[in-house]
């Protein structure tokens, strides 16, 4: 797992805007969101792109926070998050522990929706929004679909098995590049 994270660090070494590797908390997530906003306010003049990146950052970080709550074992609460600037766009890399059985559900979801056209994605998003079904955590369940839609399907992932119960799920989202 560390090797894969290191690969990202080396690949985008020159363009890192924000990086974090450690345990999370509500307060930390809030600070990271603020920090990312301050950085983007300084360097990005395209309002749509800036707000799109912020929107995806918020969804990713809050999603990680919600999943963290499920874990009773502190060892599984570590996550990584990187924001890179590349060409005229941005790359977000996040990683967190996910129960092995759930990785297939998430990866199938990404595979399915990232293959859709923008019109199909819009329809799928509206359908999901209309259903109004909440998950037990109070999340909306359509966060991932929103990330896929706003990044035009530029979502990639890697699953690194850790032990018999958990895998580390790494997601790479490209926006505007």
């Amino acid at each position, binding site marked *: 797992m560390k090797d894969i994270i290191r690969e990202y660090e080396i690949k985008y070494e020159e363009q890192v805007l924000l990086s974090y590797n450690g345990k999370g908390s*509500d307060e930390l*997530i*809030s600070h990271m*969101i*603020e920090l990312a906003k301050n950085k983007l306010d300084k360097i990005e003049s*395209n*309002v*749509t792109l800036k*707000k*799109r990146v*912020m*929107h995806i950052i*918020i*969804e990713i970080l*809050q999603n990680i*926070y*919600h999943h963290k709550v499920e874990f009773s074992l502190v060892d599984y609460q570590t996550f990584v998050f990187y924001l890179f600037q590349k060409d005229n766009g941005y790359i977000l890399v996040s990683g967190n522990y996910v129960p092995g059985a759930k990785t297939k559900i998430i990866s199938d979801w990404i595979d399915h929706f990232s293959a859709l056209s923008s019109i199909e994605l*819009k329809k799928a*998003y*509206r359908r999901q*929004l*209309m259903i*109004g079904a*909440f998950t037990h955590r*109070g*999340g*909306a369940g*359509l*966060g991932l679909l*929103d990330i896929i839609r*706003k990044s035009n399907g530029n979502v990639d992932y890697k699953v690194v098995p850790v032990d018999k119960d958990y895998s580390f799920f790494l997601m790479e989202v490209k926006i505007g590049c």
Partner: protein
Amino acid sequence: MKEFVLKETNKTPKITFKPRSGLLEISGKSIPENSAQFFDPVIDWINEYVDKPANTTTMIIKLEYFNTSSSKYLVEIFRKLEILFKSDKNVLIKWFYEEEDEDMLESGQDFKEIIQVPVELNMI
């Protein structure tokens, strides 16, 4: 029925609901980690309002950011307004977006598509 007022925070929007004039406004950021905790009292107030509404209800939405769990609650609020609209009350949702914010415009279009209440999209 009392006015419902909440101050804006760095994660939750300013809310000003005035039952007598029927002017209901949500503005700022809506990115709470626990959306249920924030929105449950809002929904409770709307439920009460729907039972005894003003003749005209105007909901103003001026959001800078909102997370997807907030969007589900917005749908829930709009569904309540649908009840009023279907009972022949005047109801209008005014959705505001910044000129260069394509995604906020698109979000307004998403709601307009799925909600059976007139939605007016306004550039700030």
